[in-house]
């Protein structure tokens, strides 16, 4: 068996989208994903995926599966199109077109970070691409997140360790502060730790903002800690305020005002200093789903095409409509493993058509399942890093069907069916 190496591959194991992976292929298996972290290695694994095409539990020819899928979707009264992870922007674009054609509800795991998106729609944002944080940040504040857990190379590639224009000595040029919010601990390798309780979190952020704006000082415990941290941030040249935008791994429900308080603080710091809020997102091109939805419809998630044009339903997305029993047929495009548990469970209760990696093995047993490759492992195209930087995908293996092609073929059948 010959060994070959695909250089500069992009890993979608988390939103860091490291594009320096050398994928060593031995025969038709991945032998090694060099430079990747353990999470990335698990994401690439050996690259094997099931290659089934099923309808009503039976293996069928692709054409039959597509015909069945088109029939089910064509008859649907309240269809859902769900963009799961591990698909390229090309596949996402094709899937949004299907949702438009069907008058479906369109949603994605972006709904999991809705609080942050809605806050940014009210306020805007103070942000930076990850590479700019590397160049500039002299103070990095990890707000209730240790990136080592779910974003393993965030610190070494972007925010903490590497040298930058204004951080010539890398880690030694920067001060790192870990803010522990209850069980959500900040980075382990910090120069300083500050602890606050989850109940105090939003107040502390608001207090810090007031300090930055020159409005208050106080002497409670929270006030003291907040004043100290806010003062440090104001004195820095460029602050990276890092938080996890994804749902808490501790099952902690974030305060609904937390996202907005973080944005407001970051914005206020642009004045006395410079500041970028870095919102950590998981992988699988999740950020692409909201970018594509935004440019095609004007809205980032929970887009209802039922009226004949896109309507924004941030409080009546997939989870809510499935929960209410309003959806009769769902088209899932992407990896079932990346679907939030509530949505995945509900998909088992409706007629589901699934196109994506490992859908034949989905626990919710789709009526029609067409396995495809994983974007970035078997499929090329484009994916977005968590900061919206678009990167090319360099597939190391050939997969089963290509997801974008399958979705486009389905779209063509739906068009024919309606004309």
């Amino acid at each position: 068996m010959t060994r070959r190496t695909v250089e500069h591959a992009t890993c979608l194991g988390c939103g860091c989208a490291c594009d320096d992976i050398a994928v060593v292929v031995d025969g038709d298996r991945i032998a090694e994903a060099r430079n990747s972290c353990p999470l990335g290695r698990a994401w690439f694994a050996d690259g094997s995926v099931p290659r089934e095409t099923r309808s009503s539990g039976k293996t069928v020819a692709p054409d039959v599966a597509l015909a069945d899928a088109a029939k089910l979707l064509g008859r649907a009264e309240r269809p859902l199109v769900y963009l799961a992870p591990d698909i390229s922007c090309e596949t996402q674009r094709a899937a949004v077109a299907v949702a438009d054609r069907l008058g479906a509800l369109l949603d994605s795991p972006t709904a999991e970070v809705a609080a942050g998106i809605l806050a940014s729609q009210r306020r805007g944002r103070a942000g930076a691409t990850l590479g700019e944080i590397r160049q500039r940040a002299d103070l990095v504040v990890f707000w209730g997140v240790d990136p080592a857990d779910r974003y393993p190379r965030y610190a070494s590639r972007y925010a903490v360790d590497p040298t930058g224009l204004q951080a010539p000595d890398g880690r030694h040029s920067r001060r790192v502060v870990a803010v522990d919010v209850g069980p959500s601990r900040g980075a382990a390798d910090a120069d300083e730790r500050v602890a606050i309780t989850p109940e105090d979190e939003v107040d502390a952020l608001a207090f810090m903002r007031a300090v930055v704006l020159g409005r208050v000082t106080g002497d409670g415990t929270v006030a003291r800690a907040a004043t100290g941290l806010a003062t440090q941030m104001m004195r820095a040249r460029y602050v990276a305020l890092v938080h996890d935008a994804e749902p808490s791994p501790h099952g902690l429900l974030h305060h609904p005002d937390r996202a907005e308080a973080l944005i407001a603080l970051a914005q206020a710091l642009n004045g006395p200093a410079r500041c970028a809020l870095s919102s950590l997102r998981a992988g699988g091109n999740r950020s692409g789903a909201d970018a594509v939805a935004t440019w095609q419809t004007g809205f980032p998630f929970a887009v209802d095409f039922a009226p004949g044009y896109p309507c924004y339903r941030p409080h009546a997305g997939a989870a809510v409509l499935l929960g209410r029993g309003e959806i009769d047929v769902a088209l899932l495009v992407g990896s079932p493993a990346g679907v939030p548990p509530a949505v995945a469970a509900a998909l088992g209760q409706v007629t589901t058509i699934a196109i994506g990696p490992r859908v034949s093995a989905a626990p919710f047993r789709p009526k029609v399942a067409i396995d495809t490759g994983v974007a970035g492992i078997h499929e090329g195209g484009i994916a977005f890093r968590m900061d919206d930087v678009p990167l090319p995908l360099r597939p190391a293996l050939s997969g089963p069907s290509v997801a974008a092609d399958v979705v486009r073929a389905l779209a063509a059948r739906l068009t024919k069916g309606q004309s």
Partner: protein
Amino acid sequence: MSKARLRIAGGAVYDPANGTEGAVRDVCIEDGRIVAELPREAPKLDARGMVVMPGGVDIHSHIAGSSVNHGRRLLPEEHAADPAPAPRLADPDATPRSGTGGTIPSSFTTGYRYAGLGYTTAMEAAVAPLAARHAHCELDDTPIIDAGLFALLGNDDYLLRQIAAGEAARARDYAAWVLSAAGGYAIKIVNPGGVERWKAGGRNVTGLDDAVGTDAVTPRRILETLADAANALELPHPVHIHCNNLGQAGNAATTLETMRALAGRRAHFTHLQFHSYGGERGKSWKSAAKEVIEHVNAHPEVSADVGQVMFGPATTLTADAPVEYLLHASSGKRWVNVDIELETGCGIVPYSYKEQAAVAALQWAIGLELFLLAQDPWRVVLSTDHPNGGSFLSYPELIRLLMDRGYRDERLKQVNQKLVAGSALADGLAREYTLSEIAIVTRAGPARLLGLSDKGHLGVGADADVTIYANDPDRAKMFATPRHVIKGGVVVVEEGQLRRAPTGRRLRVQPGYDRAVTRDLKRWFDGHACVAFENYPAVELGA
């Protein structure tokens, strides 16, 4: 109606590039191009009584890419208020798309609305090369119009390093490489040096000779280096410059100094209105349109688009991030800032120009003064810097202001008089644009400035992009609702209805460069960048 052949019969043709000013003649189309003649039996489109012009060409607009999409994401209420159902296309196999409008429409709606306005070409004017791949994706989802993108340079670390080291040739090779890698059409400079300063923790530069990091790098040196590079590379469009100090009272001095700094070099100055303010920063405002446009009039190597402000909603969106910081600080409105690694910035603030606001009224007047005092319409063309000064959908209203003095004077009376009193406009500018001049500032001129030799005219061999208007005395109505629009020989608008939506072409350049630069770039990427050198180009680079 087939794509192959069409005779547009009996219209009054305005084709200023070929010296035709309203002559009644046929325009013949075959296989997407203008031809001299067609056999009699070729299909005919009756244009008697109508006005026939080349398709519109927008030289500067923000329609696709990461900054535009950040803006879109920020405006759900605008989108909700302007739903755009899918058009009913003639081809049953076509896939018409719904969308939303507002100041930053969704991508499909952008294409449909441009075509519905009689525009067939548009330039996306500000793309960070790092994110060019994204802009191309969006343009792929923007139907009908041919489009190119301008690559943002002038605050990029690699370039500034070459300038600091006095490596002009290397800077030129790099500019050629990055423009090719981005799949771009022209070099765009935004607030040279100022965005880098903002990201470095300073506020902005204040003039052409401020040091940017080192004394060897100044806005002046950046401008000279890139203007020389664009001219040496013989790019079809020269450097496209957004000057320092945008939006500041008194900035006309900087604008004129920039023009003088580049004397003798071809250069395009964009949204000139935003750079033609007199008065003093923090103290007073007045028009300096006359001084600025007189310089333009006297220097044939200089061209400009106006960047007219139109009353109503807008979204200010620019790589000039420090300006948006100031706008946010003064207006308290929603604000997006995104620093883009090693290259540029992005700032967004939704905005509204109110005719009762003194500064907005002045901005409106200054734009009109630039138009009305410009002596050569070929070099001073129409834009609103969409969506910064207003949506491209406001072009018809702008055309009416230019063509109809009575209407203009009426409008002038209704705006806040505080700052416009004493301006050239208030003193009375009698000029009224002719249809021929409108054809120049909306298509023939921009096409020529862009070096698009197959566009903006109806000579034999030109792209068959044609717009046909009913000759309505209400020029706003006339230009808002063309009767027919033909793009590349395909009738896309028929009897005022969008009926076809072919894919547009991408316009790009691939200037040559010394390959040695790529070795040095590779080293620089390895040392500083967070994207692999190999993954950076948005399009395939030739060997």
